[in-house]
Every structure is written in structure tokens, then in C-alpha cells.
């Protein structure tokens, strides 16, 4: 092989990929944690169709992609895990030379298939939402059970990848034989089923921004408009999803020996995060936040004055909770026991999933307006009891302690 050819085939410096990957992940985490007070999903009813679609697309490409990646990344990781396992086996079988080519081409395909299936599934969902209205909205309890199920599934899969016990092999879904035969003969052995199936499954775990967009699709009252809106939004989320996932995979290919373990660890962490979110939505005291809130009182600090301005209008004796893009403030409310109470839920340019307010023990669920105050009655509670509240995805949480 000539020097020229040699240089051409040389892999990119792993450090560049590592740095790029870390930068993207940091940006993703930063944008997700510090979601801007943008009004990008506040689609006015009287705006034109094209501008609605444009706003949906921009929402997707900015906050939507990162927010969705945080929530649905686990399914994508599971999808990639199958491909990576396959590549890894091929590398061992065919030696190092085949590896460099195989990983390059194969890592993009499952991500693309996953995103393609996701876009199609959400477009269809948008059409259904627009047509059927609120009938398809999942209750918080249904979503909680689904999240717990998905969390357990992911943890089981991670343990399978660690070869902890043969029983965990059953966490890997074996598609029906007629389907694998059909796929094999049409896709020439390429693994298309898993990413397509998992991509379509993302409609069952929408992130907060997606839920807001789904609510908007519901409000359109038109199947075509609902579909177009969700199509524009999911198309917007796709580039961020693709770039972060692809870089993450490429990063892994450079660290081939450890990557299987790395993927398993990521799936394990995301599994626990998903399971924990489900426990939050169930109102379980066993969730991480509900068990540790007392240990980190600084997290329960009240909101900054400017953001909590509407609190001044709350009558004495009533409770006020500031619902902000970053969560609920204060995270711990103290209330008198054995007395009916009014809780004022105050939003002020709030567009995150914190708007989807849930008190599981009272079976209370309310999608709050982006700005305004919603009152809810809380029946008398026993002394020493605690009511947990959360957003519908179990990401933001808090509690009311009765004394």
C-alpha cells in the first residue's frame, strides 16, 4: 500500500472525536438543564400555517432534539447496541481491517432507520391526534407504568450485555420468525427491524417539548395539520439526534475493546433514569428525588424574586407553587394538616414539561397554561403525611409536607 493510500485510510484522530463528542454532549446537557424561556412552542392560533410549521421545526431543532434525546436516548442506545454488538462480532471474526469500514457504514444506518421510523410514527400520531382529539392522551398512570416497564427492560438489557446471568437473554426481543425471514430476504441481512421498531416506539415516551407539540397538534382539529405539525417538529429534532448519536458511536468505535461495556453502562444508567421517572410519576417515595430531597435542602430554594412575582397576588393561607422551566419552586411546601387547602400553580412563560402537573396520590393531572395561575383544591391530609408532585415525565418533582 502506498503512503498516499495509507494516509487516506487512516482513522480520524480519536482525540478530535472525543472532544467533539464531549462538546456535543455538554451542549446537549446544558441546553436541556437550562432550557431557555423561549416562546418557541407558543404557537398562536391565528398564525399562518407555514409559520406554525416553521416554528414547530425550529422548536425541534433547538430544544426539542436535545429534550427528546434525553428522554428517548435509551431506545436509540438499545437500537444501536444491537448494531454495535453485530459489528463487534464481525470485527472479531474478520479481523481489524474489516472493522474500520464496517463501523463507519453500519453506525449511521441504524440511527437513520430509527429516526426515519420515528418521523413516520409521529407524523401518523399527529394525524391521529388532530383527528381524534384528546382520546389518545395517555394518563399519567399509564405513562408511569410504561416508563417503569421500559426502565426494567433497559436495565435487563444492560445486565444481559454484561453477561450477568443467562436469564437476562430474555430481555432481548426475538422478532417472529416470519418477520426475520421477510426482513432477511428483503434487506439482505441488514438489521433493519430493531431500529425501525424502536424508533416507532418513541411515540409512547414523548419528551416534555414533544408533549407540548402533541397538545398543539390536538388543538389543530385537523388530521392533515396535526400530521404536518408533528412532521415538521420531528424533522427538526432529527439532526441533533443524529449528530449526537453518530458521534457517540464513532467515539465508541475508537475504544472498541471497552465500548460494549460503555454501551451497557449507558443503557443501564438510562434504564435507571427511566425507571426513576416512572416511580416519580407514580408518586412513589422510593424514587431517587423523593428519597434524597431531605439530604439536599439547597435544591428546595425558593425561586428568584423576578420569576416568582405573581406570588404576591396569592391570598394568605393559600399555598403557592412556582412552575418554571427548570422545575417547581420551592420543591418542598409545608402545609397545615387536617385542613382543606388551595394550591395556586403559577406559570410565567413556562414551556417545559413542568407544565404537565401531576399529583399521583390525588389522581390529579393538569396541563397548565404557559402563563397564569391555576387553583386546585387539596383535601385535608393527616399530620406527617406527604404528597408528592411531579411533571408527567417524572423529571421535575416536589412535595407538600403536612405538619
Amino acid at each position, binding site marked *: 500500500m502506498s503512503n498516499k493510500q495509507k494516509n487516506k485510510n487512516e482513522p480520524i484522530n480519536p482525540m478530535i472525536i472525543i472532544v467533539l463528542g464531549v462538546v456535543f454532549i455538554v451542549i446537549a446537557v446544558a441546553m436541556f438543564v437550562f432550557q431557555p424561556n423561549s416562546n418557541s412552542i407558543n404557537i398562536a392560533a391565528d398564525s399562518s400555517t407555514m409559520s406554525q410549521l416553521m416554528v414547530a421545526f425550529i422548536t425541534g431543532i433547538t430544544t426539542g432534539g436535545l429534550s427528546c434525546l434525553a428522554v428517548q436516548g435509551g431506545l436509540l442506545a438499545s437500537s444501536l*447496541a*444491537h*448494531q454495535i*454488538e*453485530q459489528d*463487534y*462480532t*464481525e470485527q*472479531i*471474526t*474478520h479481523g481489524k481491517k474489516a472493522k474500520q469500514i464496517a463501523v463507519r457504514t453500519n453506525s449511521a444506518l441504524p440511527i437513520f432507520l430509527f429516526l426515519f421510523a420515528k418521523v413516520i410514527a409521529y407524523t401518523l400520531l399527529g394525524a391521529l391526534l388532530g383527528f381524534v382529539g384528546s382520546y389518545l392522551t395517555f394518563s399519567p398512570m399509564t405513562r408511569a407504568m410504561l416508563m417503569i416497564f421500559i426502565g426494567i427492560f433497559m436495565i435487563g438489557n444492560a445486565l444481559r450485555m454484561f453477561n450477568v446471568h443467562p436469564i437476562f*437473554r*430474555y430481555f*432481548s*426481543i*426475538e*422478532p417472529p*420468525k416470519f418477520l*426475520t*425471514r421477510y*426482513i*432477511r*430476504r428483503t434487506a439482505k*441481512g441488514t*438489521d433493519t427491524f*430493531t431500529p425501525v421498531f424502536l424508533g416507532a416506539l418513541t411515540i409512547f415516551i414523548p419528551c416534555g417539548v414533544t408533549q407540548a407539540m402533541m397538545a398543539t397538534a390536538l388543538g389543530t382539529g385537523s388530521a392533515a395539520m396535526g400530521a404536518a405539525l408533528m412532521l415538521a417538529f420531528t424533522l427538526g429534532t432529527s439532526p441533533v439526534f443524529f449528530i449526537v448519536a453518530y458521534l457517540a458511536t464513532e467515539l465508541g468505535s475508537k475504544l472498541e475493546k471497552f465500548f460494549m461495556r460503555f454501551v451497557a453502562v449507558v443503557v443501564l444508567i438510562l434504564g435507571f433514569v427511566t425507571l426513576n421517572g416512572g416511580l416519580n410519576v407514580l408518586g412513589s417515595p422510593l424514587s431517587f428525588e423523593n428519597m434524597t430531597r431531605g439530604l439536599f435542602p439547597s435544591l428546595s430554594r425558593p425561586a428568584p424574586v423576578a420569576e416568582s412575582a405573581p406570588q404576591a397576588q396569592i391570598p394568605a393561607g393559600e399555598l403557592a407553587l412556582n412552575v418554571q422551566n427548570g422545575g417547581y419552586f420551592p420543591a418542598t411546601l409545608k402545609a397545615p394538616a387536617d385542613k382543606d387547602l388551595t394550591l395556586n400553580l403559577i406559570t410565567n412563560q413556562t414551556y417545559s414539561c413542568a407544565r404537565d402537573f401531576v399529583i399521583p396520590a390525588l389522581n390529579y393531572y393538569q396541563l397548565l397554561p404557559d402563563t397564569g395561575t391555576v387553583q386546585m383544591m387539596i383535601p385535608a391530609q393527616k399530620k406527617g403525611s406527604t404528597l408528592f408532585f411531579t411533571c408527567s415525565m417524572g423529571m421535575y418533582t416536589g412535595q407538600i409536607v403536612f405538619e
Partner: protein
Amino acid sequence: MIKKTFQIPDMTCTNCAMKIESLEDILAGVKEINASYHKLQMVIEYDETKLTDEQIIAAVKKKGYTAVVK
């Protein structure tokens, strides 16, 4: 036609089972292959006059796995 079961202990995922089943399209005399990652085995139904155990084991090895007659 006979039916035989082979243990394939080095399958790591369901894709491996799919890859092994693709031998159906390659090996002459095979009627059906059902591979299971859960059980780490494949059940193959084939014409013993056209195919031997050794040929099956060799074909599986070409796919990157080890087959052992159960």
C-alpha cells in the same frame, strides 16, 4: 429429512440468530433453520443425503460462530 439441534454458545444478540438463520439461503439441502439467542441454539431441518454435520459446523463457523451437536 432430519431435524438436529446444535448449541451455539457464542451468540451475543438476536441479530446473531438472524445471521445464522441466513444459512437457510446458502446451504443446499436445508429446509428450515430456527436459531434462538435465548436458548443459544439452532434447530436445523435438512436432507442428510446432501449435507453433513461437518458442513453445517463449517458454515456456522464462516458466519463467526461455533456450533456443537447437542
